[in-house]
């Protein structure tokens, strides 16, 4: 019993020993267990509002303001999705470099895959059909037939003529 109490006391004291760790795990933005993100990670996924490039490639004044905005939201403990939502609210959907998978932009990914699959299917179907045609053509030819009666008669005549 004393051992169990001692273990419980030690476990209970861990947050007190490491208060920074305990509080750092809890996002201040009220996101619960939302995964933390970083500026370098987001810079590769969002666009500069004025340059038409990824944010990570730009140091335009507008890009610097966008970075400051993202830093502020990260400091507030916002998750990646919350930050992206905030950027879309500020700059519109063009703020995102990657298509949003729950929007019509999803088809930007889906369509090339569908076209590729359809093309591949077409090639496979064509090859199968070609092979089938070739096999049936070979079946139609059948075993080689012997000489007809005229040919046989001529052959006999020739062999007799040459004393074979």
């Amino acid at each position, binding site marked *: 019993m004393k051992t169990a109490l001692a273990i419980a006391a030690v476990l209970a004291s861990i947050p007190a020993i490491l208060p920074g760790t305990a509080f750092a795990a809890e996002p201040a933005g009220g996101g619960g267990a939302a995964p933390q993100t970083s500026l370098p990670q987001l810079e590769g996924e969002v666009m500069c*509002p*004025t340059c038409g490039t990824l944010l990570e490639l730009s140091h335009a*004044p*507008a890009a*610097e*303001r*966008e970075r400051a*905005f993202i830093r502020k939201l990260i400091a507030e403990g916002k998750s990646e999705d919350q930050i992206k939502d905030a950027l879309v609210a*500020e*700059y*519109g*959907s*063009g*703020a995102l470099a990657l298509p949003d998978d729950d929007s019509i932009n999803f088809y930007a990914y889906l369509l090339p895959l569908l076209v590729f699959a359809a093309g591949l299917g077409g090639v496979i179907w064509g090859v199968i059909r070609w092979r089938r045609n070739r096999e049936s053509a070979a079946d139609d030819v059948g075993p080689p037939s012997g000489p007809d009666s005229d040919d046989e008669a001529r052959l006999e005549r020739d062999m007799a003529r040459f004393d074979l």
Partner: protein
Amino acid sequence: MGVVALLGLLAWGLFNKGEGGLGEGDPVPVATLPTLPAGEMKSLEDYRGKWVLLNVWASWCGPCRDESPALEEFEQANRGDIDVLGIDTRDLTNDALKFLSRYGISYEQLRDADGRYADDLKTTGVPESLLIDPDGNLAAQRKGPFRNLQDIEQFAAEAIAGESVSVQ
């Protein structure tokens, strides 16, 4: 063959470069945008029958800061003859609101969050200003900042002088 294609592409690029902006007399595109601070939706249609000086700006733009006091002064001096309308483009809402507060801007503002309207206006940067006649057509355009109040007055002379107003 490749060289010919490349030359054709270059020629196409050169010809298309000339179609960069709105021409004088062209109808100015209209878009319904939220006001800044938010609250209403407005468009150029709401200003039909009046001269408008449309100023496209952003808080991160240094020259926009420089011309702002003169624009505010111009608006106060010519209220009634011409409406000054700001279009805040590709900007953060809080930055824009702080800008308006810091420079004491009182004229109406619309927020063009994604910059689509600025693109429709064929602007090439900020600041840019368009003088729009009461029929909604372009009377004059300034790419870049105004130097001072006199510069703005000169730009908008046609409007200030009360030139012919023909609303259709």
